[in-house]
């Protein structure tokens, strides 16, 4: 039984500092309430000869002070916490993306070069890592206590989480949103290794790069039959679509971000591009979230930017 949790990420120290400050402040106030309560209870027990003259039934000054002082303290705590919160929510631009797909009851991980893991997340020490997560079925939550980070993983959208691991070793990973029968067994390990070891570990994989795997799926699922530039069927061209502005048939313009691409594959009828017939079949029950990620990697690799397929780190903000 240890009260101190390992501090294994860039967030652990500042969050613990704030937690401890809160512990002192709130613990102090709670102790104060208990002390005053016991003191009054003993002093003014029936039969005691304490002076009871001159008691008041209300005092405006007192009321205002215990309204305003707590409020000002709260504003201070709030400001401190918001400062940390914006840090938690804003990954640095160059953070290394790792894709997570949660499903009942496992964590599936895809690294930039296509290497995969299940229930284990290997990350390099000292490098900002950004997890881009979605769920195959119900809501899960990705929680690493030793890193002080947690984010729900929601079907139908991509949520993100970032951190810099600051300590080598293995750390427990939990699902912290109730997700059905084996929720408590949906655990794993985060392995923090040195940068060199991480690179070695990545290279030990024989997996094709995600964009290449995606290209194969693109053919296999028959997407290329319509979306290849040479195709005879009129379908939107996908080169350069990622990050562009698309006008839909109902006149709405949207940015083609991850969620747009995801829904365009899984639920094509919900966002038909202006000028095209809604003829694309749904891939909802035919494709799983991991393959959607690979297809997206392929589509992104088609973009006008310089060869993102090789680096895999073109993931734009949001």
């Amino acid at each position, binding site marked *: 039984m240890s009260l101190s949790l390992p501090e294994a990420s860039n967030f652990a120290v500042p969050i613990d500092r704030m937690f401890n400050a809160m512990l002192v402040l709130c613990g102090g106030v709670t102790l104060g309430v208990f002390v005053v309560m016991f003191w009054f209870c003993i002093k003014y027990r029936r039969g005691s000869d304490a002076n009871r003259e001159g*008691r008041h*039934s209300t005092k405006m000054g007192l009321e205002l002070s*215990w309204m305003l002082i707590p409020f000002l303290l709260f504003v201070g705590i*709030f400001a401190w916490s918001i400062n940390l*919160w914006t840090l938690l929510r804003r990954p640095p631009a160059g953070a290394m993306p790792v894709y997570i797909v949660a499903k009942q009851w496992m964590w599936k991980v895809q690294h930039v070069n296509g290497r995969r893991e299940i229930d284990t997340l290997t990350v390099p020490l000292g490098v900002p890592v950004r997890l881009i997560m979605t769920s195959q*079925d119900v809501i899960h939550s990705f*929680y690493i206590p030793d890193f002080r*980070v947690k984010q729900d993983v929601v079907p139908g*959208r991509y949520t993100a989480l970032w951190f810099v691991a600051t300590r080598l070793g293995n750390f427990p990973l939990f699902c912290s949103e109730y997700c059905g*029968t084996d929720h408590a067994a949906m655990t794993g390990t985060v392995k923090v290794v040195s940068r060199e070891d991480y690179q070695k570990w990545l290279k030990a994989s024989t997996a094709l790069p995600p964009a290449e795997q995606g290209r194969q799926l693109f053919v296999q699922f028959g997407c290329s039959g319509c979306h290849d530039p040479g195709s005879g069927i009129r379908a939107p061209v996908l080169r350069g679509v990622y990050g562009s502005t698309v006008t839909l048939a109902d006149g709405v313009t949207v940015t083609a971000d991850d969620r747009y691409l995801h829904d365009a594959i899984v639920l094509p009828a919900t966002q038909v591009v202006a000028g095209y017939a809604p003829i694309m079949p749904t891939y909802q029950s035919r494709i799983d979230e991991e393959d959607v990620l690979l297809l997206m990697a392929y589509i992104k690799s088609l973009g006008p930017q310089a060869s993102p397929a090789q680096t895999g780190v073109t993931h734009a903000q949001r």
Partner: protein
Amino acid sequence: MNAAVTSADAESMGSGYLVEGGRTLWSWLSTRDHKRIGILYAVAITTFFFMGGVAATLIRLNLIYPDGRMLSAETYNKTFTFHGVVMVWFFLIPSIPATLGNFLLPLMIGARDMAFPRLNLFSWYLYMVGGLFTVAALLLGGVDTGWTFYTPYSTMFSNSNVILVVVGVFVVGFSSILTGLNLIVTTHMMRAPGMHWYRLPLFVWAMYATSVVMMLATPVLAMTLSLIGLERLAGVGIFDPALGGDPILFQHFFWFYSHPAVYIMILPAMGVVSELICNGVHRKIFGYKFMAWSMLSIAFIGFLVWGHHMFVAGQSMYAGIVFSILSFVVAVPSAIKVFNWLTTLHKGTIDFHAPMIYALGFIGLFTLGGMTGLFLAAVALDVNLTDTYFVVAHFHYIMVGGSVMAYLGGIHYWWPKVTGRMYSETIARIAAVLMFVGFNLTFFPQYILGYEGMPRRYHQYLPQFQDLNILSSIGACVLAISYLMPLFYLGHSLFRGEAAGPNPWQATGLEWTTSSPPPEHNFHETPVVTHGPYEYCD
């Protein structure tokens, strides 16, 4: 009806409203007397409390070992779901308003009955029907969604009796709406001559604030539950992204009700404790108007903080910021209340009867629960703490440490009024102290477990969490004993207790001016009120 009620009769058991409306079971099941309906509720919610308590016991037994060897994962999930559903909707929400509120509010304002006696009885039947659905779901195999019914698990993935429980909660919601309506109208229309708003006991203010929340929030629950039914039964895509829905939308709807629901549980407790403290201290409450208005502001601001349940659910960073500051704001009126109670002790003449011990216990536990709420309102800390045992400990401090302590304190305090008899003061004090100790032993270790990262709703856990779990389970045994004790000594008092007389606590307040138990229509003459609620003069 027994026409000849002498004061000697009224002093003894088996008189007043207990016999005047008739002695048959049917006379109780068809009664329109608010006092009898209060007792019908009390019997029903006590039954549900012990059913939920059995589930809690199973949970704590299972968690003694890290591998959760006692229950299967599926059974464990169904057990905590049953515990949550029953304790929230069939015990905590109706607990004080439907029992003490029903019984006392008309007495406290000098009325003959509630404004709508038939509606009052109807709401009890709705409660029972809702309860039957929920128990039926249990008997037919249980439900494994958690009391929060998060989608798309509840709509598309769970293979359990979700619909039965959803119907049960839907129905009981209407019982709560009707009770709220009745309490509001009664407070507006039925006050005795001279009973100005600022002469109302704080318990009545608490009932009023609670009723406003019941009436405005519960319809949203009904709507949300209907949408679950629509998606689960008819496949209409509302929450499941596979059908084009949005699962986060459900959480917004659900917490828009369920956060205010927390105030439905705690506001009545604040009202009860204010009465208990004033009587225990024998002096006027400190800062009456601040106490009254702080309850109404809690009820109001309570509608604006639901997003703090969803800081890591996928809502935007800015939503997190707004809901965080609003959550701090709602803590201000709670702080006002604690400081006013403390100051009320100052220069009082304090008796430590059992109700007072419960009230002091409430202040301690509510303070601990409220203070840890600040950790959770600080969004950066919440990221680590949410969905862990820290949250479990926090809300149990408020709902069990707070609401249940206050409810039992109130039951003890008004027991002589309700039954006309006294109970054993010594045993009652022992039970109250034991409850405080057992409660802390059960739930304080859970704060530490949560800080160390143990997630909620885990049927098994890592071995390093075992010591604290064992401690918590030992505490639960103590707590269970302290909950069973009143069943025996209050049961004994019902038949053998000494006659209480109209006012055993030398309390102020109209309910103490009539006999114990009160006559069927409460007062033989309509009382005329000439002063405030807490005119103690010693």
